[in-house]
């Protein structure tokens, strides 16, 4: 089957103020299957948002190939990015109209996804009248209701408190299991990645360092010890303790093969 996303030798450079050329993305190769949930895990500044921008078509200046095959793209930003002068429903209508979704389908789409996220009663509310968590849910509804083939998510829950974030992550998995969208989810949170993904790609310094399958059965539970253990292994493997050089023995033997070449300094900066 044709992959949903195909990236080959993707390079992106830009000129800094000092005139030096910085390479943000170094020859990335990536394939994401249809219906796959992929997490890209990496510290800030590692190029993961840049990669998403290229995939989304926001950034068109790059070398190599990046093609997205399965239709429209939905995108969830770190912030909700709702239009503050429109109601919840107005914001959905804006997206539906911009994407030229036939008007007769609007009601059904809106109702479906609003119900899935528990926002059905908030159609007439303005963004400032709902909580940050609800605003991000609404942004998720907006991304879903234009029926994207692929959903790109850029640290969408990092700005929320942990309890709210957990609820939305669980909702996201429920929605994903129902709709089977292809999802590329960028995060710096190892636990989140282990809970959500089929596969984790660890990124740092503009390149993928490791690929890790997540062999945890679905449906997953947030308190599943398997998620906890896997994320603990990931964290341990990436470097013990924040900003501290880990002793060589700190890398546990059974998993050491996963992260041999990960830059430890970068890993230590990760918010794991």
């Amino acid at each position, binding site marked *: 089957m044709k992959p949903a996303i195909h990236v080959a030798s993707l390079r992106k450079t830009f000129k800094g103020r000092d005139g030096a050329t910085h390479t943000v993305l170094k020859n990335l190769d990536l394939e994401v299957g249809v219906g796959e949930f992929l997490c890209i895990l990496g510290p800030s500044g590692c190029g993961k948002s840049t990669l998403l921008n290229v995939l*989304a078509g*926001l950034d068109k200046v790059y070398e190599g190939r990046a093609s997205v095959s399965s239709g*429209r*793209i*939905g*995108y969830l*930003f770190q*912030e909700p*990015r709702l*239009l*503050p*002068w*429109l*109601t919840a429903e107005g914001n959905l209508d*804006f*997206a539906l109209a*911009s*994407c*030229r979704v036939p008007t007769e389908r609007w009601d059904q789409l809106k109702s479906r996804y609003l119900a899935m996220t528990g926002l059905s009663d908030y159609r007439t509310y*303005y963004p*400032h*009248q709902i909580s940050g968590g609800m605003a991000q849910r609404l942004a998720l509804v*907006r991304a879903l209701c*234009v029926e994207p083939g692929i959903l790109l998510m850029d640290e969408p829950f990092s700005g929320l408190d942990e309890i709210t974030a957990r609820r939305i992550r669980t909702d996201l998995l429920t929605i994903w299991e129902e709709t089977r969208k292809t999802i590329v989810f960028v995060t710096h949170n190892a636990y989140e990645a282990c809970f959500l993904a089929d596969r984790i790609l660890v990124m740092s310094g503009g390149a993928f360092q490791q690929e890790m399958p997540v062999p945890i059965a679905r449906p997953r539970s947030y308190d599943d010890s398997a998620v906890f253990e896997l994320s603990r292994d990931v964290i341990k493997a990436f470097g013990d303790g924040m900003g501290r050089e880990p002793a060589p023995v700190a890398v546990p033997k059974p998993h050491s093969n996963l992260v041999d070449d990960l830059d430890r300094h970068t890993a230590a900066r990760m918010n794991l």
Partner: protein
Amino acid sequence: MLKVVSLVVAVIVWGLLSLTLPPEIFPGPLETAKVLWGEIAGGRVETDVAMTMLRVVGGLVLALLLGVPIGVLMGLNRRAEAVLDVWVMIGLTVPSLCYAIMAFMWFGLNEGAAIIAIAVTAAPSITINIWEGVKNVDTKLVAMARIFEASRPVIVRRVLLPQIYPYVMASARFGLGIIWKITVLVELIGRPNGVGFKLFYWYQLADMRQVLAWTLLFTIIMLLIELVILKPIERRIFAWRPEVAV
């Protein structure tokens, strides 16, 4: 309620202050109101008020037509900003009296010249306000709109302009404040009617009762415009904005 109290206090303060000077030089509120009522009842205010309002509205519209596009251009385009920056600063520095004299000398003593002088004086302030507003536009919302495949016209109309409206509204309001003051000045030096003309006329006759009566009249009119027209429009357009509680 607080507004009414504060208004009453203002009138009382005026009354108390007026006691310090003879009534021919500083009449109190009651006396001024009486004189004003006499003028209104005698039908001697309509023409002048109408002429002044015409110039104020004409000047405001023209000032917005000049100031808003230039401000938007400066906010969106670096080069335009670099070129027009100095012009706006010069425009802002030249006193309104100079604009009025130049307009009357070049275009003659007519309504067109008066309105041009008024608009040119107010336009730079409006430009600066809009320019700042456009620079504050949230580009993250533009990126969002692009993700949802919004076309350029749609982005301008539904994402950029709504962010600029509050600044246009604010410009119209303070523009009105500036413009009414310029209008009076322009009428004083170059028009045969209007509130400014009347003020100067009564000043030359040293009739302070009339001077204050005309001042009071126009203050009331401007307050009414603010309360009856601008405030409700603003409330309606910006219903989505959260109320600020400090």
